[in-house]
């Protein structure tokens, strides 16, 4: 009985390893792969079916928030932007974007909060709050299937270059940089998990490990904790610069938001 179970286990692990190698080797000219490609068929199926993707719970909340006035005399998002499928199409695929007023790049979450404060006269939503994640998920979904189109504004470039430097910088007690694992070792395994290439193609994601929806910043902070470094605070300029770089690195890859990830 135990012998059979071990054999089945070995076979299962070998099958998964073989499948993983196939994904890496069978590449066309573009070697880039979304984290989606490294997932099990069951997790992929969870993402692809809107009736069973848990992230859709946040999307439906986001849609309600889009149409809700934050105050009796204030406009809802829909008051300026009308129907999101039209007005928000391509938006998430092109963020972070350089903001001329603040003279720095803003990510989508910061942009939503700028709108709330400036145009809706409402308090900003807290990072990783239910409301902000729901709005972000709803807006991001309007870019689903579209290619990532990094901000072409030349003023964003110095910030992007800082992000590129951060990506290569060794940090933490484990003295690892993002590129150590996600460029050089992508496709190989850390423990039993396949190391993905770290393209932000699906954010905000329903992560099985979190049992909830979270943003790219949550994931980046998680990675930093993982290598035993002090994570940047939510909203820190470094996290926006990293995202700016990551979106350039993933340029033209299709957005899958809101995705499911292990």
């Amino acid at each position, binding site marked *: 009985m135990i012998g059979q*179970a071990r054999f*089945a*286990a070995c076979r*299962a*692990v070998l099958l*998964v390893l073989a499948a993983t190698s196939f994904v890496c080797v069978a590449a066309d000219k573009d070697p880039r792969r979304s984290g989606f490609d490294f*997932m*099990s*068929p*069951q*997790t992929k*199926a*969870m993402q692809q079916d809107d009736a069973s993707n848990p992230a859709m719970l946040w999307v439906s909340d986001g849609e309600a928030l889009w149409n809700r006035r934050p105050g009796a005399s204030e406009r809802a998002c829909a008051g300026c932007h009308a129907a999101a499928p039209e007005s928000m199409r391509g938006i998430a695929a092109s963020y972070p974007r350089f903001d001329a007023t603040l003279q720095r790049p803003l990510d989508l979450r910061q942009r939503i909060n700028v709108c709330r404060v400036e145009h809706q006269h409402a308090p900003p939503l807290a990072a990783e709050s239910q409301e902000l994640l729901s709005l972000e998920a709803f807006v991001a979904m309007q870019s689903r299937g579209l290619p990532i189109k990094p901000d072409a504004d030349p003023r964003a470039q110095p910030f992007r270059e800082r992000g590129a430097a951060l990506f290569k910088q060794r940090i933490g007690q484990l003295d690892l940089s993002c590129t150590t694992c996600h460029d050089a070792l992508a496709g190989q395994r*850390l*423990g*039993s*998990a396949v190391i993905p290439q770290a393209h932000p193609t699906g954010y905000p994601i329903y992560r*099985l*490990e979190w*049992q909830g929806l979270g943003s790219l910043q949550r994931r980046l902070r*998680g*990675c930093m*904790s*993982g*290598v035993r470094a002090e994570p940047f605070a939510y909203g820190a300029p470094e996290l926006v610069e990293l995202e700016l770089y990551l979106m350039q690195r993933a340029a033209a890859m299709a957005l899958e938001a809101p995705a499911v990830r*292990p």
Partner: protein
Amino acid sequence: MNRTRRKIIHAGASLGVIGWARAVTAAEGGVEIALALAIKQYVGDAVVRAGKVKLDVAELVENGNTVPLSVAVDSPMTATDHVKSIAIFNERNPQRDVIRFALGPRSGRALVATRIRLATSQKLVAIAQLSDGSYWSHSADVIVTLAACVES
């Protein structure tokens, strides 16, 4: 003493285990006993036969927090011949029960799906109760991989 307690004590006695309550631990024998007792509480004195039930779950799962599975039972689902309930048990979580479904002739098809939590690699057992009082089962071994990076 109520019927359930009497049954459990009889089960313990028939398994020849002394101090059976303390045997329900992480030790191999304890794991099997705990699962057997939980199943016995569901089926009573009936014999559970393998067959008719198909428990569909991946052999290797990426994350134990959310493991999709489905259970299908070969049944015409008529008024006189149908599935009354399906229960899923696990081996190594803190508690044996996972989920129980109540079906009937209004169901049309005996096919249910859900997502469950698995604390570690272990066996899952799905048991269907039919309208004629018979019980059928299917089990599957699942390997659960843990996240490589600890976030906090």
